[in-house]
């Protein structure tokens, strides 16, 4: 019932956003169908925080994850680009008995290629579709230990495996609104006799300009945007020695309202992520909320 109530609120937000204002923006927690121009380099750095305190196991566990993904994107052509993501992480779990376990450092580096396969420009708008494929490399520590022994896989910085990622992203950008849709599948492989469950991610982003209220007839302008995203994922159960782990996998969906300041070369943005659906298997910790600060600069 809580999920249905929150979905109704989400629908209202969407209705309000679809009033006719010009929206020109970029999603924060989703990918988009646009590709960088030829020779363009985009640098992006984010500060992300996620906390989980709802512990159905009764152990009163709490998990905090701080991450700073550093991303570089380069456009080889106007259709083909390469993205490299370096995630710096701090993972920390506190139990009710006061024990603290965790690790910090570089996680698994991801490398993606993106190719735009569809472009349709029409009066007042453009539609772009791109395919994405890449690898997640085992650069993060996957066998960190503390006084209690080997950290659980969820607290390790890396998975230890080379994993494959494939997906597609679409952007519809008009003078009234922008909608970005992003689908992605992560094929997780086994390492250290453990295998994270495959993940299917789906994202939907709606953006609208809130300032300036009226566009100037000539020239360019800086602008503020309001946006709301729906960021969800389904995850299969993890496997240990080929056996499904009961306290793993499930479905999570976040609603993520945000604000952006967009200039010709810089985008500064922030987003708050709140889970509106958490259908998790077993006694997994549930997410309370997440928070994102992000800066993009293009050269």
């Amino acid at each position, binding site marked *: 019932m809580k999920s249905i109530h929150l979905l109704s609120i989400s629908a209202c937000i969407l209705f309000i956003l679809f009033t006719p204002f010009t929206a020109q923006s970029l999603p924060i927690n989703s990918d988009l169908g646009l590709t960088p121009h*030829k020779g*363009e380099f985009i640098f992006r750095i984010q500060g992300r925080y996620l906390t989980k305190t709802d512990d159905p196991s009764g152990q009163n566990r709490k998990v905090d994850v701080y991450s700073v993904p550093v991303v570089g994107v380069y456009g080889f052509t106007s259709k083909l680009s390469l993205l490299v993501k370096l995630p710096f992480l701090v993972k920390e779990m506190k139990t009710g008995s006061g024990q603290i376990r965790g690790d910090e450092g570089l996680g698994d580096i991801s490398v993606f290629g993106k190719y735009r396969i569809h*472009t349709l420009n029409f009066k007042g708008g453009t539609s772009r579709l791109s395919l994405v494929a890449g690898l997640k490399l085992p650069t993060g520590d996957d066998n960190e230990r503390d006084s209690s022994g080997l950290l659980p896989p969820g607290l390790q910085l890396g998975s230890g495996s080379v994993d494959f990622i494939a997906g597609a992203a679409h952007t519809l*950008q008009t003078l009234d609104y*922008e909608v970005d849709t992003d689908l992605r599948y992560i094929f997780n492989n086994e390492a250290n006799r453990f295998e994270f469950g495959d993940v299917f991610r789906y994202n939907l982003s709606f953006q609208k300009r809130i300032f300036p209220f009226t566009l100037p*007839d*000539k*020239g360019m302008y800086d602008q503020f945007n309001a946006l709301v995203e729906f960021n969800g994922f389904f995850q299969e159960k993890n496997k240990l020695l080929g056996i499904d782990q009961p306290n793993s996998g499930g479905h999570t969906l976040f609603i993520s309202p945000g604000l952006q300041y967009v200039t010709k070369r810089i985008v500064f943005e922030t987003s708050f992520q709140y889970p509106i659906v958490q259908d998790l298997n077993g006694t997994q910790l549930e997410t309370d909320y997440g928070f994102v600060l992000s800066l*993009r600069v*293009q050269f």
Partner: protein
Amino acid sequence: MKVKLAIVLIGLSILFCLASVSPAGEKEERVIIKVEGLYCPFCAYGLEKHIKKIKGFKSIQINIKEGTAEIAFKSGTRVSKASILEAVENAGFELDGVTWIGKEPEK
């Protein structure tokens, strides 16, 4: 005295007029291009970068609302539509029209 003053004023006026008039070699070639797919200031930067690479580039004003760009080139550069087309496409957009202000350069 009045005659001398008048001569000085006329001379200064002539000098001022000569300084205001650009020599023939510095006249601009101006063109307005219509670009399809341009709806974002962050995206428009790519168009500006690639247009600036065209030999003879002098200045550009991108008008996002109209989907146009007003470009000035140094006189005598004989900029071609092909070079403008290449720049627009490298920026990820489609060229929908080129309008020369004045005489179109000979190909």
